[in-house]
């Protein structure tokens, strides 16, 4: 459970949200300490993406509060939230198709250690495709660009929605290594959604599991690595394996 | 589910989409009853019927195949001139004229169809517009044939079926136009519920997948474009025959633009949109214009703006609700 010694970065209280008339999330409570990262697990359609989208503010909120680094963002617009320090990698990638790779990065850039050169260092493939338009990229290249784009905001909190989807195994390996370094060495916080739990438990400090829009399990990731049967119970054998 | 059960369900589901809805029957009964109900407005009704046929034509390509056009007047004009010229120089028989109008416009549609196969909505809008404008200028240039800006004079129509003369009250005109509309509507209804119609919807929804499913997109689009052109040609022929006059105006840009409005007001893609739109548009225009002949445009404009800003769902919702109520009534009666 959250480490009381570290200052709080994100605090979510009784958050309910959905799309249009449909409510997807019910009374979510969540706290994340600065420098910590969180694995967000759950079966298909339980509302993982909806939770991440509600943090950035593109869903319909029906109640609850969101506080980032002491600042109440409940009523803030998505762009204000982004400015407050949230970087978002949407599930569908949503690369800007009429911008080049480079423009996709610079259009959202905010000052900080991450710039285009550093992103290209992380994904050399993107550097080779610098002048391709967003819709002239392979599926995996788009995924890399989406991650790089979020980093360009130099966020305090990174929201990664299935970041390894569609990536070659070797790239996945490298990406996970890079993320680990970011979390451990640069103290970046993140919320990571992943279908394959085992890939990210090592990477994160804490884990929550959603079921039908509610939190059903909140635990330290290390504990879950040690006790895999607890995850299995919620996710089914496959994912926890 | 066992196979035979499933097959029956599949058949039923496929049948459901083409079954006659009670509201449809009521609609057509009312259309014919209007002849008796509004004897003073037959001329307006005739115009509505013709506009409805014209809109039905656009619905075939826009609502079912996703081809936008801002030059549909080209086919209206082609049909009108063909029918008018035929009546003037060859035979005054209305049906011959109708066929000539449809044939000429259909041919034009076939010839110009390669132009609309590719490109975005915007390019299609402009290409069709361009074709219509070129046709307009051609009709103006060949004034010895078309009468140019003075219009095609001296069309005299023979009685419909040799029996019903076109009278000044528009009795024959309305019944004739409405019957042609109804007949062509029946054909259109068949077509959109056929395998051909289904493939059009497929192309509209997703041309990439349609091609990957074995649909020859280009040929189907050309076919429906030609068919729609023939329909517009029929509308043109009716216009020429019932007004016994053709002017360059039939080819004008505002015809195509108004048509678009008509179809959007009524809603595209369910065949009745154009008909309902035509009724709404003409009545509204007539009503407002009789109040304020000088500034009616303002009120039509305001209507359009409000309609899009909020009223569209309302009106379409109301239409659906009314249809549903009829359906319930119909079922009640059947029971």
């Amino acid at each position, binding site marked *: 459970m959250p480490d009381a010694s570290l200052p709080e970065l994100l605090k979510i209280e009784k958050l309910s949200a959905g799309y249009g008339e449909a409510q997807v999330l019910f009374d979510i409570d969540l706290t994340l300490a600065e420098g910590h990262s969180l694995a967000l697990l759950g079966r298909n359609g339980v509302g993982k993406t909806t939770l991440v989208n509600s943090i950035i503010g593109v869903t319909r909120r029906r109640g609850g509060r969101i506080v980032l680094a002491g600042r109440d963002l409940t009523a803030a617009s998505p762009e204000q939230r982004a400015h407050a320090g949230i970087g978002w990698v949407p599930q569908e990638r949503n690369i800007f198709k009429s911008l080049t790779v480079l423009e996709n990065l610079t259009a959202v850039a905010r000052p900080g250690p991450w710039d285009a050169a550093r992103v290209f260092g992380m994904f050399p493939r993107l550097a080779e495709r610098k002048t391709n338009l967003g819709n002239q990229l392979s599926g995996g290249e788009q995924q890399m660009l989406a991650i790089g784009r979020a980093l360009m905001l130099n966020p305090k909190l990174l929201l990664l929605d299935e970041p390894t989807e569609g990536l070659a195994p070797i790239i996945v390996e490298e990406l996970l290594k890079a993320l680990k370094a970011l979390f451990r060495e640069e103290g970046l916080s993140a919320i990571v959604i992943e279908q394959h739990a085992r890939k990210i438990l090592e990477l994160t400090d804490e884990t929550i599991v959603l079921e039908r829009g509610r939190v059903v399990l909140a635990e330290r990731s290390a504990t879950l690595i040690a006790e895999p049967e607890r995850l299995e119970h919620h996710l089914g054998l496959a994912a926890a394996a | 589910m066992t196979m035979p059960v499933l097959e029956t369900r599949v058949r039923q589901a496929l049948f459901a989409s083409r079954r006659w809805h009670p509201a449809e029957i009521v609609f057509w009964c009312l259309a014919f009853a209007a002849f008796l109900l509004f004897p*003073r*407005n037959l*001329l*307006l009704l005739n*115009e509505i019927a013709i506009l409805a046929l014209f809109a039905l034509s656009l619905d075939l390509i826009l609502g079912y195949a996703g081809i936008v056009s801002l030059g549909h007047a080209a086919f209206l004009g082609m049909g009108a001139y063909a029918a008018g010229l035929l009546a003037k120089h060859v035979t005054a028989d209305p049906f011959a004229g109708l066929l000539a109008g449809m044939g000429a416009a259909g041919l034009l549609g076939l010839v110009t169809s390669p132009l609309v196969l590719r490109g975005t909505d915007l390019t299609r809008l402009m290409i069709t517009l361009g074709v219509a404008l070129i046709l307009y*200028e051609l009709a*103006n*240039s060949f*004034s010895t044939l078309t009468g*140019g*800006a*003075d*219009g095609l*004079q001296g069309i005299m129509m023979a009685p419909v079926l040799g029996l019903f003369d076109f009278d*000044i*009250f*528009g009795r024959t005109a309305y019944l004739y136009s409405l019957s042609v509309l109804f007949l062509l509507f029946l054909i259109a209804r068949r077509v959109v519920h056929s395998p051909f119609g289904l493939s059009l919807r497929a192309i509209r929804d997703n041309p990439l997948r349609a091609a990957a499913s074995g649909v020859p997109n280009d040929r189907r689009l050309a076919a429906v474009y030609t068919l729609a052109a023939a329909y517009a040609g029929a509308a043109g022929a009716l*216009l020429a025959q019932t*007004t*016994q*006059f053709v*002017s*360059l*105006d*039939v080819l004008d840009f505002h015809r195509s633009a108004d048509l678009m409005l008509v179809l959007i007001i009524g809603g595209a893609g369910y065949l009745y949109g154009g008909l309902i739109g035509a009724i709404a548009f003409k009545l509204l225009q007539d009503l407002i*214009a*009789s109040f304020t*002949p*000088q*500034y*009616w*445009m303002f009120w039509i404009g305001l209507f359009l703006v409000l309609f899009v800003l909020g009223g569209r769902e309302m009106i379409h919702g109301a239409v659906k609700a009314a249809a549903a109520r009829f359906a319930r009534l119909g079922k009640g009666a059947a029971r």
Partner: protein
Amino acid sequence: AQEAVKIGLILPMTGPFASTGKQIDAAVKLFLAREGATHGGRKLEVILKDDAGNADATRRLAQELVVNDKVSVLAGFGLTPLAMATAQIATQAKVPEIVMAAATASITEASPYIVRTSFTLPQASEPMAHWAAKNGVKKVFTVVTDYGPGIDAETSFANTFKEAGGTVESVRIPLRNPDFAPFLQRVSEAKPDALFVFVPSGVGAQFMKQFIERGLDKAGVKLIGTGDVVDDDILEGMGDVALGAITTHHYSAAHDSPANKAFVEAFQKANPGMRPNFMAVGGYDGMKLIAKALDATKGDASGDKLIAAMKGASWESVRGPVKIDPDTRDIIQNIYVRKTQKLGSELHNVEFETIKDVKDPVKARK
């Protein structure tokens, strides 16, 4: 009292020809105000409809006016096709159709019930050709808009002028044409003595401006034409570019007669900011004609009686003496040669020569 006589007035009140409709509508209202609404013992009731310049709308409105409103007279008709589209109805219903604006010569031949109180283009163009030939012009370049009236003007001018021994070159401008540069450039290269122009009155100003901009006036090219280019309605706005244009027409707001002065004054009082032009006069005289016919029939508004009464009717119009030709039902009137000049601070077409009692030359020749 007897029932009112209804007049169906169909005009383009919206669209590109709205100004025509407005002039006529204003003139018709002015007529009723000045000369009373009761004639031949019957009250005149005008029903105004807008056809926006669309022929099939005109036709339907005419039909409805006849069938539903039982009008005794149809009037208005801003453009040739609009008048033509209605001809059949006039014939079928035996209702007089008073053409107050449209100017193609052949209109009155479309139905025996059509009577015209405006003018025909040949009527205005031929005198121009005569005048030009007499005043030392040898070579003319004609520039007309490519549609019925333009072609009418071109042919009648060119034929007459050639007969008088001149040479003519011609070019036609498409209906939708925002820039006149290419046509004026041809004129400037041909170096004619005069440029004869006919364009619909709305674009006249544009034409004149470019004529001056291209320096054709300085190159010694005279600008001549029918009165349409220097339409009184917009003359003031054209500014000095219009100065010096020589035109022939049947009406100018500056026509020098007490009757006209009173008319212009009353018109401007009722419609601030507007100056009556030849459309207004066509409308005013159209009403006059109807009133006179009713007087003659003692209130009998049946079509044949009215038409019979209209044939040969004559009166002193604000444009000068006019008469309805009993054979052609077209108007016989004076055509004036005018020069555009400043009168005080205002621009006007000042008449300086009169050709009396001009019939429509096309029909006169037949």
